[in-house]
């Protein structure tokens, strides 16, 4: 079990008063305080760690959120921001003396402007909900984390979420114009706006990916883009992970940047096919999903060139999607991949390191060796184009030993990523899960610098404590 900070005795002692205070702001319907009803809030998408919170608060407006934060700050109560609770790094893991602030009720789209290409949405709008509101007009919001159906934009900002298409369109940080944030003191601040690149410090950039350490996000102004004329995916199946890795290197090196370049190994292919029935090649050891966009002729030209490059690597098969439905099924499989692994294993740990793409074959081989060593299966799903790896380590939570092996296996993979020049997390965030590995990537001085910046926003360390930074100073 992960180590969490000692609950503050003073907070626990005035639990009733805290709940009464929250109810004054949010009425009964916005506060959850009974033990049985707090249980389902004890974890997010990372099931390895659990801790019910002191209470859950569900504000419906920015003003309510500000009032709640002001109150909790006065009382010195720790705060755990939560969106859809899909974090795979335990970003929303509660503390026994902490109040979870759930943003799910702030789920309205406030404004969409096609002329100036932005949308203003509340933090609890789902990622896909933004695109869904505008796709009939041909526009979309680009970052597309695999959990985009459920995950909320506030959480995307907190984690700087990426996705399959960020090779071309960038991650969350590259697609924001403005934020409405609430500080721990309960101050409502507008950052950025409907324009690009203000001078002064890049608050937008600093807040994005700050994992709820600096402030809470209540509204987001996103850049929206007109979708290309069309897109088509191609499935290229290979005889080994290494060969597929080499093919990725070849494509990127050629000067073509596909909009998406995804990698799956055999266990992942089988689990996803079972869920999505996308026609993934079940005889392949490794599969690349390569997507291009543009007019049909442009797609043909690009796919032709990519196909020729794949052919240099003796593929088992190359198949180009023939319809929108087929493409949708291909992506449904890929985006449901993590959950689909639930079909072959009761539990998994999802890693998220990034490596220089040239190291792909080496890292894949080493992961295979570790899998033998720890006697745990692993399904590999990667954003190959940008080197962001998602090895899914399969274990059985009802078997404590297998969980401990899975944890050690995961740590080994992440250390390997750092060792070859990469990082611990590409898009899921440090959360609680990788907190204690931060020393592998940063020196104590570097961590202290980051802590000092956190303290500038949150002097008493009430915002999402026990995440991101190793516990020592927290």
């Amino acid at each position, binding site marked *: 079990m992960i180590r969490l900070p000692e609950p503050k005795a003073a907070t626990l002692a005035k639990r009733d008063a805290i709940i009464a205070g929250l109810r004054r702001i949010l009425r009964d319907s916005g506060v959850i305080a009974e033990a049985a009803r707090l249980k*389902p809030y004890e974890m997010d998408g990372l099931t390895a760690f659990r801790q019910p919170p002191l209470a859950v608060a569900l504000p419906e407006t920015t003003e309510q959120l500000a009032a709640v934060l002001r109150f909790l700050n006065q009382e010195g109560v720790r705060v755990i921001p939560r969106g859809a*609770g899909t974090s795979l790094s335990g970003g929303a893991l509660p503390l026994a003396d902490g109040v979870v602030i759930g943003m799910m009720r702030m789920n309205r789209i406030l404004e969409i402007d096609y002329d100036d290409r932005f949308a203003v949405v509340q933090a609890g709008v789902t990622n896909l909900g933004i695109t869904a509101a505008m796709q009939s007009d041909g526009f979309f919001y680009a970052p597309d984390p695999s959990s985009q159906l459920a995950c909320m934009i506030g959480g995307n900002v907190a984690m700087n979420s990426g996705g399959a298409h960020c090779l071309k369109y960038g991650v969350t940080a590259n697609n924001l114009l403005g934020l409405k944030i609430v500080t721990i003191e309960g101050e409502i601040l507008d950052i950025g706006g409907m324009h690009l690149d203000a001078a002064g410090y890049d608050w937008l950039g600093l807040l994005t990916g700050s994992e709820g350490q600096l402030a809470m996000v209540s509204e987001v102004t996103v850049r929206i883009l007109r979708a290309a004329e069309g897109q088509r995916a191609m499935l290229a199946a290979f005889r080994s992970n290494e060969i597929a890795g080499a093919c990725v290197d070849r494509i990127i090196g050629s000067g073509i940047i596909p909009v998406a370049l995804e990698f799956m190994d055999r266990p992942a292919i089988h689990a996803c096919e079972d869920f999505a029935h996308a026609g993934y090649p079940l005889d392949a050891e490794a599969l690349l999903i390569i997507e291009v966009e543009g007019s049909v002729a442009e797609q043909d030209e690009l796919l032709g060139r990519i196909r020729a490059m794949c052919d240099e690597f003796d593929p088992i098969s190359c198949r180009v999607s023939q319809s929108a439905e087929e493409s949708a099924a291909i992506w449904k499989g890929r985006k449901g991949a993590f959950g689909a692994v639930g*079909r072959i294993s009761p539990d998994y740990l999802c890693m998220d390191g990034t490596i220089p793409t040239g190291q792909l074959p080496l890292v894949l081989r080493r992961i295979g060796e570790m899998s033998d060593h720890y006697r745990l299966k692993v399904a590999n799903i990667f954003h190959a184009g940008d080197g962001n790896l998602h090895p899914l380590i399969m274990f059985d939570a009802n078997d404590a030993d297998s969980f401990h092996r899975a944890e050690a296996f995961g740590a080994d993979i992440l250390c390997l990523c750092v060792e070859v020049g990469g990082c611990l997390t590409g898009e899921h965030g440090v959360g609680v899960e990788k907190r204690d590995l931060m020393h592998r990537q940063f020196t104590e001085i570097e961590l202290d610098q980051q802590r000092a910046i956190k303290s500038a926003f949150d002097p008493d360390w009430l915002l999402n404590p026990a995440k991101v930074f190793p516990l020592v100073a927290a």
Partner: protein
Amino acid sequence: MQTNFSVEQLRDSDNAASNSVLRTCVHCGFCTATCPTFVLLGDELDSPRGRIYLIKEMLESGKPATEEVVRHVDRCLSCLSCMTTCPSGVNYMHLVDHARRYIEETYKRPWPERLMRGALGRVLPHPRLFRLALRGAALARPAAGLIPTGTMTGKRLQAMLSLAPAKLPPQSAAQKPQIHRAEGARRGRVALLTGCAQTVLAPSINEATIRLLTRLGIEVVIPAAIGCCGALTHHMGQHDPAMAAARAAITGWTREIEGEGLDAILINTSGCGTTVKDYGFMFRDAPPAEAAQAKRVAALAADISEYLVRIGYQPQRPAPDLTVAYHSACSLQHGQKITSAPKDLLKTAGFSVVEPRDPHLCCGSAGTYNIMQPEIAGQLRSRKLATLKDRRPDLIAAGNIGCITQLSGDGMPVLHTVELLDWMAGGPRPDAIGQSDV
């Protein structure tokens, strides 16, 4: 997901089944996004993932259900949208069915609610009683304004009265147990589940089904002694009445299967279809012979739209210039995964077919839900009607009497898909469309 059942607990078949459902869940949260109550209420506890967790804790504890858990399980529509979304293949239906039964057996509800649930379970599945009750409701309607709506019970009574039609259609002889012979050469033989509430509320649906099938050369059997399929009580957690009703149906159909034989057991109320198709699971612990019968019945069960696609459907009339907004009943799209068949059939019939935004969201009908949870059901109804009307249709089609009742009364004709198919294949123009050209 980790579970904490004792070895002793796992000896219980229901616990064992729920344990394996829970083990499949990886807590990814995808299901929350497509859950109607989560979208409306914005609380993890009113999402599938939250309920799965509440149920897990409740079952593991082995203690009686508490009000805190019951409230959230009761708010579940059992629309099964979460099962369509779930990448891991979690069988939420079996889990929530178990939870409802567990609650029914261990939790003492406040007496007005107990009374109401008992009455619904006794009346709705029995056409004679249901008709009487509806007559009573029609009489009581002028007094509806006198019911205080400050309490949940008041709201529920109001909801019940507002759902009851002012005028009941005349009884239909076609629905009585009998054999409807095929016109011309017999191409097939099916049993039709005429249903319980449907026979009272809209006999035209069964009439249209029978006309259409016999015209297509299918003999339609309505076996005696089959009333409700058990779905209504099953969804209220009333295990014994549900099993008794299901057992009667299985016996009746088995007689036909082993007699002249059946190509299919047809169901035109998709809520029932989901349950009949699950008989194999419901009777998994029954004596082997009965379990085998249940499995056989489940395997033969088919929605009318599924069957029509199988045997081929062609219209006989020129295409009407009508736009149909197709409302996909949850039991059809999520429970039975039938999504394209009804739309394809309507298109073949000559209608132009449109779909509302968020077609995966429930209309709020959900068996007795619109009575027991009138506020949420009302919000879902408004939302559904608004998104349907956005598409500017002439009428709405659905494959489930519950949805049809729920969506009616807003000025837009709501029909069963099969009534439209029958019309275009030579049957009479459905009354609901009216005689003038729409």
